[in-house]
């Protein structure tokens, strides 16, 4: 493993035209730029963009990415369509979902549910649900428990099909 940052973070504005069609307008900032500065830069740039386009800016996102060019090989036969879906319970009673691509067979019960007593699964959700962890539901509510955990399959896209088919 050799995780490293991409050299630039991206600022994306989502534009929308009169028909409701959306498009992306992308800019880049040096990766060392803090998020606070990046947000100020985005605020400065947005009106300048709006002055030259008939479209309207409806959203923005700033993305900092890292990658591992020296990652090891995936386990033979692994398929990312094979998901381990976990529905978590938030403190406010709402649900939050996470899906693990390529879930290991060793974590599964014969029924297709996930074995919650499995040590690796237990360690994962002990870590996620730890009150000191910074993971949360989409609305910011703390994650407090696992409601459901099961295997589910996503259909393969054309790009995922074997090249020698």
């Amino acid at each position, binding site marked *: 493993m050799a995780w490293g940052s991409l050299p*630039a973070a991206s600022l994306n504005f989502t534009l929308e035209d009169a028909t409701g069609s959306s498009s992306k307008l992308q800019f880049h900032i040096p990766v060392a730029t803090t998020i606070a500065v990046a947000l100020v830069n985005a605020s400065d740039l947005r009106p300048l963009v709006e002055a030259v386009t008939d479209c309207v800016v409806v959203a923005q996102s700033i993305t900092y990415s890292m990658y591992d060019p020296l990652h090891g090989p995936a386990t033979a036969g692994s398929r990312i369509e094979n998901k381990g879906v976990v529905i978590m319970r938030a403190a406010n009673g709402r649900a939050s979902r996470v899906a693990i691509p390529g879930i290991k067979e060793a974590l599964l019960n014969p029924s297709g549910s996930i074995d919650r007593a499995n040590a690796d699964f237990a360690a994962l959700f002990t870590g996620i649900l730890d009150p000191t962890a910074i993971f949360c539901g989409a609305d910011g509510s703390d994650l407090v428990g696992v409601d459901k955990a099961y295997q589910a399959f996503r259909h393969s896209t054309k790009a995922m099909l074997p090249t020698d088919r």
Partner: protein
Amino acid sequence: LIAQRAQLTFSLVDSSDSIGNMSVWLADGVDLDAAVAAGATFRGLVAPCTDAVFVRQSVVYSAVVSPRPIAPTGADSSRVGGLIFSCDTGELDIIELHGIKDEMLMTTGPGAGLLIDRTNTAIVALVNELISGLWCNPFGYDVLALESAYLQIRR
């Protein structure tokens, strides 16, 4: 502008080189260093549970404009202003302005209706911001100067 809470997104690759993604939300006010550290922790916890391997991690700070604005009649995202900038060490950067206004285009001369008017005050203001030293191309090279600007039609 209403800020959403930050999100960690991950890409994993399987033995067929297919890419799968997963994501988790982060608590309010999380700075980038804390988010990156949380990502490393998360990868370490998930790795024993998957046969795929992690190849990419992103921290995404999103916001939406509220109330949602409505584009004026005639706004057309297929009309794209292509701005080509030179960058450090001979690199280039391309900015694609969807829905470019008609008044940004030259009205006379051989490039009328096609070339973007580089003297238009709105274009000058945008270009000056982009060459201010704050912006770079995807490879991290500073944007230096506008080299070419013209209309493209995307269909």
